């Protein structure tokens, strides 16, 4: 449904996208996961024909983003990151407006938006600008769906949204997928990655990896330990000074410690920590999550870049 080959985009000297290639199949939920400024919005704007790439090719539902832009616009739904509705129109008016622009009616595709719109019905005469964040997001999704798009582009639909509303939003996406709609969704929340069929991790305009969340975490390159103890902050600093430890990051109520040295297992590490005066510390081996993978891949990329810029790599 979406094919991208070697897409690049620069803004002046800033390389927003560097050599991006990927494909998304029909009915897939494909997540683009990365922090602000990584290039997610630029990529979405190219694929929705709102911005021209400097190089490379992209096709959406078989149409080229340059030559076939009119066809693409009729076939995709786009929900930009910033609230894009008409603030002075009511809920109902916004929806009617988007339906009319695409030459359809609310009734024609009501089945697609029904379970989302049911939650908005009580407010249908309220102006969009007066809705809560969660409600605005639901309305924007309805407006992006009303012309029955083949592909839905959702740019950070859950940013700034509380965890409960985020879960509800993902449940809605799952139901849309079941109706055969292909979904490209971007998010800075790594915990949402597991809800996608496949994900691309993006950092500084480059894809670090494309894979299913399951494969991604299975390929985490080193041993990962979780460490929990009474004085977490000192523990963090001292862990970083132990030889053989590649990285150590706080993860909620425990620290995740990536270990390069295969001989440094859970028992050895807890012995070392005890010797440093940390009592009651629990160390256990754990499976990496998407955030662990992201940090590892991005620090690896960073260090290889630094090496090549100092000329250490020939």
């Amino acid at each position, binding site marked *: 449904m979406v094919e991208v080959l070697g897409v690049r985009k620069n803004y002046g000297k800033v390389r927003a996208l560097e050599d991006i290639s990927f494909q998304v199949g029909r009915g897939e939920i494909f997540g683009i996961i990365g922090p602000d400024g990584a290039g997610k919005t630029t990529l979405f704007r190219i694929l929705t024909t709102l911005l021209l790439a400097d190089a490379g090719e992209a096709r959406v539902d078989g149409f080229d983003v340059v030559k076939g832009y009119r066809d693409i616009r009729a076939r995709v739904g786009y929900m930009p990151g910033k609230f894009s509705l008409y603030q002075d129109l009511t809920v109902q008016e916004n929806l009617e407006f988007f339906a009319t622009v695409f030459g359809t009616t609310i009734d024609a595709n009501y089945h697609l938006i029904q379970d989302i719109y049911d939650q908005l019905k009580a407010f249908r005469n309220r102006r969009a600008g007066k809705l809560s964040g969660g409600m605005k997001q639901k309305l924007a999704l309805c407006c992006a769906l009303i012309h029955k798009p083949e592909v839905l582009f959702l740019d950070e639909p859950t940013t700034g949204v509380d965890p409960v509303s985020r879960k509800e939003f993902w449940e809605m996406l799952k139901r849309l997928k079941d109706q055969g709609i292909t979904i490209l969704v971007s998010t*800075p929340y790594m915990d949402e990655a597991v809800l996608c069929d496949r994900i691309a991790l993006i950092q500084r305009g480059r894809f670090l990896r494309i894979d299913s969340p399951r494969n991604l975490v299975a390929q985490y390159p080193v041993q990962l330990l979780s460490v929990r103890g009474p004085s977490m902050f000192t523990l963090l600093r001292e862990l970083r000074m132990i030889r053989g430890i590649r990285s150590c990051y706080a993860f*909620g109520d425990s620290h995740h410690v990536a270990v390069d040295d295969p001989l440094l297992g859970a028992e050895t590490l807890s012995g070392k920590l005890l010797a440093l005066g940390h009592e009651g510390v629990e160390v256990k081996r754990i499976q990496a999550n998407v955030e662990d993978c992201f940090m590892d891949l*991005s620090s690896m990329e960073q260090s290889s870049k630094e090496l090549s810029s100092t000329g250490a790599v020939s």
Partner: protein
Amino acid sequence: MRVIVAENLTKRFGHFTAVDSASFQVGQGEIFGFLGANGAGKTTAMRMLCGLSKPSSGRGTVAGFDIERKPEKVKASIGYMSQKFALYEDLTVRENIRLYAGIYGVPGKLIAPRTDDLLRRLGFREERNTLVKALPLGWKQKLAFSVAIFHDPKVVFLDEPTGGVDPAARRQFWEMIYEAAHGGITAFVTTHYMDEAEYCDRVSIMVDGRIEALDTPQNLKARYGSESMDQVFTQLARKATREVE
């Protein structure tokens, strides 16, 4: 020492009670997580504590000053940073520091040495004359936090400080919060990242304008039979019944 005290703090807008009799206390150097769903009343409560909005009833003190009678004293004793707005993009790193130092009344002779010290600790010396808009987001957040505590306030209010920041930078940011708290600054933080709730000494969860739960993350997880703060939050926030603006 109690740096923040709220007693039955209430804010009504017409018939709508945004904050409903909230009571809590926060100690010096504590990291206090202030959680709630969108529209639960967090921002309204925070505005009252910052001296920006008067309570309809109830009372509060911040750094010993009454939020209703001495709002200007409150404002001078706090730092504030939000993800949405923190720094002037068209000013350089150094100019932003100078501007905020002036606004918060840092004595002139202290500004230059503190600025040098700050730039050195952040590793920003090379970037001191760079426009803030040219900095990566993670750097901006670090600078914004440093600027918010530049005048050595009693409390720093952090409103979703890490939204959209990459995972490594998000953690470095929390290490800065730890350090500030260690130095005696109280941190009052809102966040939608539930792993960050675990970094707080105590956490309150607001539902429909009321404080539904307040305890250490460990005790909250035990009480709600949950493995993570995410589960605790979900249990409580799903009780919400009101639809808000």
